[in-house]
């Protein structure tokens, strides 16, 4: 090792090698495998999150559609039947044919 000037711009190989050995982290392969496995887990988790978000939206949309359909069906059944028109009443067969004949007879007999 040499006495370097302050702010020497050259790396010190002796100190550098000693520090490198002191900080040697060991098995690099295992570390890389660990990081990549964790990255895969994060990717899968992010997809789960996306799917879960879409699932929530889907359930909400289905509920809205069901509510709308229920409202429409209920509204349709609650609507009153249309009143028969005069023409309908004249065309329709009489409910009590005898009464009509009596009325007609009385009109004919009393002009």
């Amino acid at each position, binding site marked *: 090792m040499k006495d370097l000037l302050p702010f020497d711009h050259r790396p010190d*190989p002796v100190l550098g090698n000693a*520090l490198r*050995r002191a900080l*040697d*982290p060991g098995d690099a392969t295992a*570390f890389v495998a660990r990081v990549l496995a*964790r990255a895969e887990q994060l990717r899968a988790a992010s997809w789960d999150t996306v799917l879960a978000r879409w699932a929530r939206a889907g359930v909400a949309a289905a509920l809205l559609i069901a509510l709308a359909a229920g409202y429409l069906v209920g509204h349709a059944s609650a609507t009153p039947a249309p009143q028969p028109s005069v023409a309908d009443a004249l065309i329709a067969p009489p409910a009590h044919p005898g009464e009509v004949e009596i009325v007609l007879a009385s009109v004919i007999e009393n002009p």
Partner: protein
Amino acid sequence: MADAGAPLPPSPTPPPPSQPGQPAARIPGQDEGELVARAVAGDRAAFGTLVDRYAGVARRVARAVLGNPEDADDAAQDAMLSALVKLDQYDPRRPFGPWLLRIVSNAATDRRRRRSVRRAEPLDVGLTAGGPRPDVTAERRALGERLRQALATLPERRRIAVVLFDVEGYSHAEIATVLGIPEGTVRSEVFHARRRLRALLADWKEEG
């Protein structure tokens, strides 16, 4: 320290040529912009290449900050995964190494702060006081232990600076990018760290 995704200073100067015996740990980064682009697009092999390429330096920097190898690996892993999430923020015109190592040093520092809150961790003092020298076969291991202890007495920024400069071969300008401090401050940090560590090595030699 600013966010690692923030715009970085102008591209740093290349490191000086390697000296004989110098640990040539500097990682070439010619194809890293392309690797990052592929990783952003979901190419797992590209991300794997980046992790493989930077695992060593990331773990060493984290260990310089944290001391404990398990904590250091956890911090390095967190940083790698954080970098994966932020990859789309990386500017491919800048060198990748300093960008990543800034995330690593932030992750290690954050972990150390959280750990300090959980338990007060007294620093070892009197590290250069000598003591009985272990047998020759354990010499290297013992020296490593004393160097780690000596590193632990330095401020974090100083540790990172000396490791990146003397171990990893990064330039002062690149280290300034990593630490978010002026280049002159990096020079000062490296100088003070070296003085402390060299004293330890000198004592070790004298004891031998």
